């Protein structure tokens, strides 16, 4: 597919630069070396297991955070009072940095899964909230009026106009929420855990294993492409009407 051309080109050029000696291997390992490390980590089961553990956390956080973000956006997007009550605290909360919250979260939620999933949920919540809210505000009022003129109930209007109308932007939000969920993971996994992709990277940092760090980052990039492919698929289905 055409979309693979450019990532593959980048990797090939990078490999050639490394082989040609233009990139110091201490500055940046070559793709082949990274692949080798990756194969090692996959073979001894580390990478798969770590990713799986993280995946669970991310999915759970994403579901919780996404649900909250979506619901709040619908309420804020559709009523003046909802907007006034919900939006300002959301605008305050969304800037709170994860790193700063960790101490507080440990105090409140301990060291188990709760603070980790909460952190991920918090991260995932806001892009969906902001984008869905923007999407709702951008819905063509004429179409919304048409739905009102058909005497659709609130719920029906949400189902048939608000959700499909805001959907393109919600999907942009979903993309970002997915991204942020994985980003939050690495912070969340500084809270003690004995497994997880973020944990792998954090540990590698502590022990100066640059190759492992890069493998971890490569997995992140691959996850980025995968989630992107999933969201693209959703988009194609959901936005067929634009064709």
């Amino acid at each position, binding site marked *: 597919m055409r979309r693979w051309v450019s990532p593959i080109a980048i990797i090939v050029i990078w490999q050639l630069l490394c082989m040609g000696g233009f990139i110091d291997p201490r500055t940046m390992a070559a793709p082949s070396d990274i692949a080798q490390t990756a194969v090692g980590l996959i073979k001894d089961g580390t990478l798969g297991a770590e990713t799986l553990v993280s995946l669970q956390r991310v999915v759970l956080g994403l579901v919780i955070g996404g649900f909250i973000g979506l619901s709040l956006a619908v309420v804020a997007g559709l009523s003046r009072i909802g907007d006034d009550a919900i939006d300002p605290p959301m605008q305050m909360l969304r800037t709170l940095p994860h790193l700063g919250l*960790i*101490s507080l979260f440990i105090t409140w939620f301990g060291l188990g899964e709760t603070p980790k999933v909460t952190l991920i949920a918090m991260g995932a919540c806001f892009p969906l909230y902001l984008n869905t809210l923007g999407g709702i505000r951008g819905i063509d009022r004429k179409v919304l009026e048409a739905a009102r003129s058909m005497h659709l109930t609130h719920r029906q209007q949400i189902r048939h106009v608000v959700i499909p109308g805001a959907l393109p932007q919600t999907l942009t939000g979903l993309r970002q929420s997915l991204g942020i969920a994985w980003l939050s993971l690495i912070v969340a996994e500084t809270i003690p855990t004995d497994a997880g992709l973020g944990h792998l990277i954090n540990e590698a940092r502590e022990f*100066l294993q640059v190759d492992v760090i890069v493998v971890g980052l490569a997995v992140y990039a691959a996850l980025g492409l995968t989630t992107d492919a999933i969201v693209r698929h959703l988009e194609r289905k959901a936005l067929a009407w634009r064709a």
Partner: protein
Amino acid sequence: GCGGDATGNEGAVDDNGKVDLSKVTLIVGDQKGGSKALLQAAGQLDDVDYEIEWKEFTSGPPLLEALNAGAIHVGGVGNTPPLFAAAAQSPIKIVQGATYGGTGDAIVVPSGSPIKDVSGLNGKTVAVAEGSSANYNLLAQLEEAGLKYSDVTVKNLQPGDALAAFDAGHVDAWAIWEPFTSQAEQEAGAKVIADGSELANGYVFQVASETGLEDPATKEALQDYLSRIARAQVWSQTHQEDWAKVWAQETGLSADITLAAVKKRKIQVVPIDQTVIDSEQEMADSFVANKLLPEEFDVAPFFIDDFNASTTGEQ
């Protein structure tokens, strides 16, 4: 920045190989209340011929990360971080040492805890920053008490987060170093069930990057810098109260905490010699045995004694 192989000081050497120190900038990695505070308090920064650029890190591992990347020339860390760097074949050398004795490294439990000694930790949850000196102390203490590392549930936490977890009762014990030991005692009412006086070596090291050592200009500045460090360490032992005050100011801890910490730890400058190397090798082996480090390796190549004369007067 100064990534890669350059130290940025190559221009300070003239054609005859003579070094013009006034053209040298020594980039030093520091930690809160570390070398800079100590040198300043001891008046060792007043007449330096070269420039010192301070880079403050949150803890030892990121400092070593920067050393590894060649972003700094030298930095002070505890006794374990260099082992992890060495295991990663990082291009670094340990160039100066001092010991506080092992008393700073301790295992603490909450005041009302039923745990009375190390053997009571069996099956309990212990907070520790993996790869720290307290981590080794915990290993050693457990071994001494006939327990394995796997007999406790380890929670890898940096000091601040560990204090939060300890405070909120999410862990049963905490293996930690000064000044956090004193902070835990005074703020969280912790009590020490074991300190490292018998088992931990209490070393602190100055670690330099190989690129810095290979550059004559940087090396010359380094030599001077290390001697100042050694003098300041001696000073801190003779001026405990002054040092505690400065330290408190720097870290935002209360003066009571830092004074207690200073009093507990008697610093002594040591030469880099076989004693030091053996002690560190023992620690490394212990980490390997407990799978905190991947494979056995020799620590000796990571030590050099070139600066012993200027720091301890010994050769």
